[in-house]
């Protein structure tokens, strides 16, 4: 930027990194400039594929060779241009002055070396230290990142650690030489919310203690809000906005930023249509004439298609958009503010007729051992859950990874055979029905999966995939009828009709998810189990899918069993919420009950762990209001005795360690499984 204040720690100027692919050269990073000051957290925000990670890798000259190359630009760090340094000199800087941690702690640790050995390699000056000293250093590092049992962990291998602990180990390695800058590339994306909040808090604390700068790369606005001092927003290889966190969250300037905020689901948007950004992030193989966002921007006018907008900066903030003149005041615009469509479903429909009734459902997977494959135990993936879904309602199941959400969904649909319990669908006892009778019933309940890439057969045409249920259940007789029906479905989910004769690999994740929805809709079900249908998608695309699901619910009065770990999605569309922990439901109630008045300590922790987007930016520590959970989720093969949660529960008492709490009704629709509330009722 123009302002060349000399207290910058790192200055990136006009960085261009290109990647050669079969389809041509991709301008992945196309003229990116930004500065980091000492002790500052700078967040690079952007959707998948916009060039965030490559920007970071370019700084350290770690881009994949030979496909990638840095074409031009400068990276000034303590008076030197890093891009001109030799590989050998860079090694002195990497890991020592600038350290980096990655999204997948799994793949960045060496599986055949112990944690101690790996940390030892990065301890500075280790040749002049005795092994006792080195060991002390390692323990000190592990303690500083909050690793429990640090002395024991030194001799453990990565596979013996949980995801959160691996990330802690990575951070410990990165901190070993007290770097000036820590680059964190999506450090918490692979982790659960409660673990994520532990790691974010750790980073914030370390930053303060060591007066270190952090370059945080993320797609999550919540994380940015909690951590960042400054934000740069990237789109298709360019920086489109650079602002301090407060003004960015208070009044984002770039239309893309504004849209991003609007497309995030939350409670205030309940029953309203989410504002969507149409289309998908472009792959920038070609040269752009105008603004890269122009095809998706609803404020675009002629100029936007013809001329690339200049970077407009004032003081430290800047934006790349024709709407702004040099003072960053919005110019006269053709602002056609679209009405936010209101969805007309009434919330009052509380006493809907029960469509699905699940009673004490259990799924236990046997664990086999030895040559005779003896059963030595069970993974209690689902351990007695009961819930009811009314017609036209959405029940959300929330919980952390591995708590049995997916298994529960599949067992309800009889895709996995339940070990015990009952599933009653519209009077039919599914757990008792088998064979042909069950097959005929299947048209009533369908499922949509999380991974859009695994949910469609790569060898079948899109049309064939959608028509499959029609064929199998003989719902349409003639070929022509099937075809018209499929085309109608494609239109209904907002896909072009000519997708019929194409293969799944030609479509993006969001489009595939639409196709999966069309496939489920084909047999006109009443109930759809949605297993994290949006968690693999970008925020702007997530909004499209959520809108579609919402529309379909109103049109066809569908019921959803919505499985998710994303609280904002729950806030946006759930009528009732079930919170799961280790195979059991610990709290059940209406969305209002759970979100406004969470009773179970786990629910409270879960909700407070979710990073919130605050108008004032950088919330940092949440202080007392946050219930920080210690430790990891135990394995479902040997859940703790008594209340499963007692090892992590801040309010656990003696009885919690001995006895599983009974169901307690605390309101009309609100039930909770916790000893804290039992006593109230009993007396």
């Amino acid at each position, binding site marked *: 930027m123009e302002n060349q204040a000399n207290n910058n720690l790192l200055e990136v100027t006009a960085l261009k990194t290109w990647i050669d692919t079969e389809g041509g050269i991709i301008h992945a990073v196309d003229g990116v400039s930004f500065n980091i000051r000492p002790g500052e957290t700078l967040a690079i925000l952007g959707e998948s594929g916009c060039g965030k990670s490559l920007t970071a890798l370019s700084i350290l000259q770690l881009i994949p060779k030979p496909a990638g190359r840095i074409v031009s630009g400068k990276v000034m760090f303590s008076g030197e241009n890093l891009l001109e340094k030799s590989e050998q000199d860079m090694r002195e800087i990497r890991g020592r002055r600038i350290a980096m941690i990655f999204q997948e702690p799994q793949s960045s640790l060496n599986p055949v070396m112990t944690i101690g050995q790996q940390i030892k390699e990065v301890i500075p000056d280790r040749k002049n230290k005795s092994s006792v000293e080195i060991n002390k250093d390692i323990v000190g590092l592990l303690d500083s990142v909050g690793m429990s049992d640090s002395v024991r962990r030194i001799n453990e291998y990565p596979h013996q650690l949980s995801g959160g602990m691996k990330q802690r180990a990575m951070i410990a390695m990165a901190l070993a030489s007290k770097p000036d800058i820590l680059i964190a590339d999506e450090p918490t994306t692979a982790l659960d919310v409660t673990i994520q909040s532990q790691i974010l808090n750790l980073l914030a604390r370390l930053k303060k203690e060591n007066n270190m700068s952090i370059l945080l790369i993320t797609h999550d606005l919540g994380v940015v809000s909690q951590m960042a001092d400054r934000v740069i927003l990237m789109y298709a290889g360019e920086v489109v906005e650079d602002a301090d966190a407060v003004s960015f969250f208070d009044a984002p300037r770039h239309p893309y930023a504004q849209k991003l905020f609007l497309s995030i689901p939350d409670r205030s948007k309940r029953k309203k249509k989410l504002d969507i950004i149409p289309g998908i992030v472009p792959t920038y193989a070609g040269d752009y004439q105008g603004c890269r966002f122009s095809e998706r921007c609803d404020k675009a006018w002629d100029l936007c298609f013809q001329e690339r907008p200049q970077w407009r900066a004032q003081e430290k903030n800047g934006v790349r958009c024709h709407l702004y003149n040099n003072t960053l005041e919005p110019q006269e615009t053709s602002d056609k503010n679209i009405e936010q469509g209101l969805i007309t479903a009434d919330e009052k429909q509380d006493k809907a007729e029960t469509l699905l009734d699940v009673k004490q459902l259990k799924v236990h997977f046997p664990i086999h051992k030895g040559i005779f494959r003896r059963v030595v135990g069970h993974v209690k993936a689902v351990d007695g859950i009961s819930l009811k879904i009314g017609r036209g309602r959405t029940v959300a199941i929330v919980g952390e990874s591995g708590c049995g959400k997916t298994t529960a969904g*599949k067992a309800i*649909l009889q*895709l996995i055979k339940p070990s015990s319990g009952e599933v009653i669908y519209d009077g039919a006892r599914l757990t008792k029905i088998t064979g042909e009778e069950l*097959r*005929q019933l*299947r*048209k009533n*309940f*369908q*499922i949509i*999966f*999380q*991974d859009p890439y*695994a*949910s*469609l*057969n*790569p*060898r*079948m045409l899109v049309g064939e*995939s959608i028509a*499959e*249920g029609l*064929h*199998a*259940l003989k719902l349409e007789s003639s070929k022509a009828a099937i075809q018209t029906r499929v085309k109608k479905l494609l239109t209904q989910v907002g896909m072009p009709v000519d997708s019929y004769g194409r*293969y799944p690999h030609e479509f993006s994740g969001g489009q595939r998810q639409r196709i*999966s929805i069309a*496939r*489920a809709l*084909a*047999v006109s079900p009443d109930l759809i189990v949605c297993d994290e249908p949006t968690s693999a998608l970008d925020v702007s695309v997530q909004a499209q899918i959520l809108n579609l699901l919402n529309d379909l619910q109103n049109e066809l009065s569908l019921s959803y069993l919505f499985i998710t770990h994303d609280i904002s999605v729950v806030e946006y569309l759930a009528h009732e919420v079930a919170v799961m922990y280790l195979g059991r439901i610990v709290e059940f109630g209406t969305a209002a009950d759970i979100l406004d008045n969470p009773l179970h300590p786990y629910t409270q922790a879960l909700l407070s762990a979710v990073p919130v987007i605050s108008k004032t930016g950088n919330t940092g520590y949440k202080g007392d209001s946050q219930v920080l959970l210690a430790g990891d989720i135990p394995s479902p093969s040997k859940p703790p005795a008594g209340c499963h949660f007692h090892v992590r529960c801040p309010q656990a008492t003696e009885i919690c360690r001995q006895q599983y709490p009974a169901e307690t009704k605390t309101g009309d629709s609100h039930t909770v499984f916790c000893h804290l509330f039992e006593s109230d009722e009993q007396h």
Partner: protein
Amino acid sequence: MLDFTFKILVTDALLYLLVTAIIIFIVYARKHEHLSAPWRQIKNKKLAMSALVILGFFVITGFLDSVHIRQEIKIDNTSKNQQQVAQYSNEVLSLLDLLLTKMRQQTEKTYSAPFAINSFTKEVADGEQGKPVLYYPRLKYGGAHLQAQDSRIYDIGKRLLWALFWTLSVLVFCILLIAKITDSKNNIENKHINIATRLKNIISGNTNTPWLTILLVMSIPVFFISSIAELGPYYHIMGTDQVGNDVLYKSIKSIRTGLLIGTLTTLIILPFAVVFGITAGYFRGWVDDLIQYIYTTLSSIPSVLLIVAAILSLQVYMTNNPESFATLIDRSDIRLLFLVMILGVTSWTGLCRLLRAETMKLRELDYIQAANSLGVRHRRIMSRHIFPNLMHIVLITVVLDFSGLVLAEAVLSYIGVGVDPTMDSWGNMINGARLEMAREPLVWWNLTAAFVFMFILVLAANIFSDAVRDAFDPRLRKA
């Protein structure tokens, strides 16, 4: 009126079936990108295409040898009033036999070395004074056209020059033909370039498909064939065997045996492996236990034992029921078929295991779960969702197994449980060479001819199968 009738042997019929299947597969693959893209990749690889050219010549030879006819016997027309019924010879000949009539019919008494004009063994004749003398007699056919003063080397050289001339003519013809139908690498937008430029592109190697390499490689078998056409009727190029048969002719005839064993066996393997592998992996439970039990049992019996037992019992059956086999060729054909079947039965387990493991992975995938929840029947899930996603494994295995099977035939025939001893096969030739290697001077050509032919076929097949695996294996493709 035709003066011959077709005779379709059982193995011929199976081969035709296989060829039809391959053609259907090609038509199917052209319509499916995931199958045709890897082939396009192979098409642009030099080594793979060279191997394919060589394989092509083997396949054409084998195919020519699999169209069998019986010629009409000309009957004396003395009894004119008798009703004319066409009479066909008992001798079953293939198209290849007809092409190589001279080589087939010109049999000597016994061994003769390559290009020899005299016999390899001495004969006794009356000498000048009535004393018996030992001498090497002239061969009946080998070099029979040469007069005493003619130079053999000069004659062979002259004929080879002619062969070279034919080869070049064929090459030029092919270049022109290719120039007519191809387009060059650098020319995607503008298809209309003149034939001269295209010629230049081909000759300078500037084409997507490596035509230059293909042509160069092709010239080798073409030259070989023209040499046979030029020299074959006058010399025994690779000598003769113990009973005076032309060794080169026998080696060429063995191609069919090798190819049939290599390909028909997979025809037997496929249904077993695919059906059992997919069912076991898909249903698991007791079905899986049963199928696993069958194939672990089967693969823990040494397959040679099974083969020996099967072939011996076939032999016993044949000696007890000679009337069921009309001709010698029927008999050896049945034995070949039997060998193919027993080889198939003993070698389906490998592929079956692979397919079972892969199916187990696939069945957990979301799209299979979705199909389940749509009430799609198991049979359809297996055929529409699982099988197409296993296709690459099947293809890779079939191509990789081919050379192993060709070699297996040689080994089995060597120990006497292979194809019928009267049938031409490299294994039988090697078996026969056992004693020849102990002779003084050495009779080396039988073994050498069999070895060279087998080596070239197996090498070409291996190179080609590597290319197929590289192109189809998704893990290798990424790297």
